[in-house]
């Protein structure tokens, strides 16, 4: 029996500024393989489908259990995590592309800095307000903790930005995830104290106003985060904030 092979078509790019090109690979199949283990196979034996030696394909990964977000790439047209993309469940040839909404560094690895900039911009954290012990913070009602926990699962993977038609090189939209993080931190009993700062940040250019309701983000998010509910909720909060500011300050 002939050895079973996996057929991959990978969009490659040698440096941040060079032109992308496609390269095909045929690698031996093993049961239970995912896209990362297929890429590791290429790394072990960097020979393309034509039998020529080539540079091993570059990618990023860490946790290998879909919690770090580092391995996001476009697999058969859909942005998702390579580590949870099982070869058995993918149609062949498997097409791998970088998430080109982000600057490509090399092959499949991209630079997600803009996401961390967005989190800084909306102040997606709870500030520490003293170096001395301030005692325990206020408690959070259990019902709220439950949905807040869902929002906290965001791993900054970038899939929702890749899926969003309004996140592109012509626009400065910060992306769905950052809006959802504002909802999370504005609900936190201590984070709430700086609520207005995050709302103000969402109302700047590239903020919540740029959402056009395509709702792809909520379909694409691997963590099942209710992004569109967060966005609609923050729409309400920013409108309320704007009205209050206009009339009472």
């Amino acid at each position, binding site marked *: 029996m002939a050895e079973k092979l996996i057929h991959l078509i990978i969009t490659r790019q040698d440096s941040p500024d060079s032109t992308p090109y496609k390269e095909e690979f045929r690698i031996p199949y093993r049961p239970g393989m995912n896209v990362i283990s297929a890429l590791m196979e290429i790394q072990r034996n960097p020979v393309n489908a034509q039998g020529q030696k080539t540079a091993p394909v570059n990618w990023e990964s860490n946790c290998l259990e879909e919690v770090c977000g580092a391995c996001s790439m476009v697999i058969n047209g859909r942005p998702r995590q390579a580590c949870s993309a099982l070869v058995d469940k993918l149609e062949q040839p498997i097409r791998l592309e970088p998430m080109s909404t982000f600057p490509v560094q090399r092959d499949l690895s991209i630079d997600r800095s803009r996401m961390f900039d967005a989190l800084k911009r909306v102040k997606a954290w709870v500030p520490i307000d003293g170096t001395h012990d301030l005692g325990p913070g206020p408690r959070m009602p259990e019902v709220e903790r439950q949905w807040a926990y869902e929002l906290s699962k965001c791993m900054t993977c970038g899939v929702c930005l890749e899926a969003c038609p*309004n996140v*592109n090189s012509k626009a400065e939209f910060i992306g769905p995830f950052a809006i959802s993080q504002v909802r999370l931190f504005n609900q936190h009993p201590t984070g709430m104290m700086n609520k207005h700062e995050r709302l103000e940040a969402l109302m*700047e*250019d590239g903020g919540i106003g740029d959402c056009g309701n395509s709702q792809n983000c909520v*379909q*694409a998010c691997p963590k099942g985060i209710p992004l569109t509910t967060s*966005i609609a909720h923050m729409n309400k909060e920013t409108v309320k904030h704007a009205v209050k500011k206009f009339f009472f300050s």
Partner: protein
Amino acid sequence: MAKGHSFLSHKLHSLLGLFPIGLFLLFHLTANYQATHGAEAFNQTVGLIEKVPLLLIVEFVFIYIPILFHAIYGLYIAFQAKQNVGNFSYFRNQMFLWQRLTGVITLIFIVWHVWSTRIPKAMGVTVNFDMMADILSSPAMIVFYTIGIISTVFHFSNGIWSFLVHWGITVGPRSQRIATYFTMVVFVVVTFIGLRAMSAFIL
């Protein structure tokens, strides 16, 4: 990143789409619907509208300026998006695309419609049943008006859905789904009114 006014501009665009532009559309189509009761009824309605005090100012403040702003900013929004229904063929993404397509079609239609009715009026031509009957005596114009009316009403109906989200009125998936059904009904009913009104001018 800049502070800017984009939040305010987006909100203004959204608001104007419904008030006054959407309300005007409903008013306009219902007024036209009077033609189904005969030329006389339609001409009477037109006569009534012309009795509105300071009509020209009302037209500019409630119709022309809002549409102009909504259309220009709408084009800017529409062409900023990088459409991706090929990979994401979900219903809402299709609606997202159609909201932008119908915006552009509606703009073309409105420009032509104003050019062939309101501009002649400003030049002294009387607007009445015969004017519309004359325009709609050409089959090509019937097709153009049919597309124009359906496009405008679609844009308006789906715009209501979008408005409800942009103002945080429908927040969760259930209320947004119910809003989808509601706006579908609006689309069917208002399209009927619009097309039935048009058919009354076709002799």
